[in-house]
């Protein structure tokens, strides 16, 4: 069954939703039955602003394998990017 298990990450940044660019303060992350994807379970991320009542979101549904690869690529981009920009 779908569950209410959601990992919440407090985030700082912006996302482009249906209404255009918006500030986001939360990423809701859950591994569950997808809404759109035809996979049985997907890693779902909803970027939203709870401070604004979560009226809009940017949603992705990824296979578990691609989600793990994404985590790896995110860390790689941070490593190379921070080095390049001497952050």
């Amino acid at each position, binding site marked *: *069954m*779908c569950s*209410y298990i*959601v990992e919440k990450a407090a985030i700082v940044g912006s996302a482009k939703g249906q209404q255009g660019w918006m500030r986001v303060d*939360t990423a809701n992350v859950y591994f569950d039955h997808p809404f759109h994807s*035809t996979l*049985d379970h997907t890693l779902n991320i909803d970027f939203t602003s709870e401070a604004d009542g979560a009226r809009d979101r940017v*949603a992705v549904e990824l296979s578990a394998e691609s989600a793990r690869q994404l985590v790896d690529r995110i860390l790689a981009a941070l490593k190379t990017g921070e080095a390049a920009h001497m952050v």
Partner: protein
Amino acid sequence: MSYRGIIAETIKFRGDNGDEGEAYYARPSGDGKYPGVLVIHHLPGWDEWSIEVVRRLAHHGYAAISPHLYFRDGPGDPDDIGAKARAAGGVADAQVMGDAKGAIEFLKKQSNSNGKVGAIGFCSGGRHVYLAAAQIDGIDAAVDCWGGNVVVDDKSQLGSKRPVAPIDLTDKLKAPLLGLFGNDDKNPNPDQVNRTEEALKKAGKTYEFHRYDGAGHAFFNWGGAGYRPEQAKDGWQKVFAFFKKYLGA
């Protein structure tokens, strides 16, 4: 044989606490008296599949309604609102029961009502139907499609929104119950389905359970990875036979 016409539309209904919300209502067109069916949508939300189920029921001669259980979190697209409701831990059982009551009252007030109303729910909606059959008067047939968390072994899962495990209300069931389950489902798993059946037997309730091999969760959902056409075809036949027996058609 030719296909009947139907009328399908989004309407306003009065739910829990008298709150006005939206519901999808479909029924056969033309004069007649029809049994009503309340459709309780699944956790992800009031989606297109749920609406198609309402139309399917109307096509088969029922006046069917699916209230949007998350209307209070709108406006917006139902999938966005569903995601918001999920992140907030879902909606309270008491509120769902209030919305279900309001939708049933709507059906019974219509001039096309034959006086009988059934309820069918999918996933968390199946669990809600189990609850409704125990807590709401006026349901003449209840169908639980793979409702998870009817059995709650981890009591820390109970809280203010979901205070009671539905299985603990089995002796209060007021409607005959049809249950459809995939044997590959993890929630409810076959052991939990067996335990639910034992509770129904012990309480002397009228029920039918059907379990399907080669099917897991949501095996009726055409378009989803879990769709199993043969099992779904048989399952729908069970649903319509059950509704015909208890609601007339």
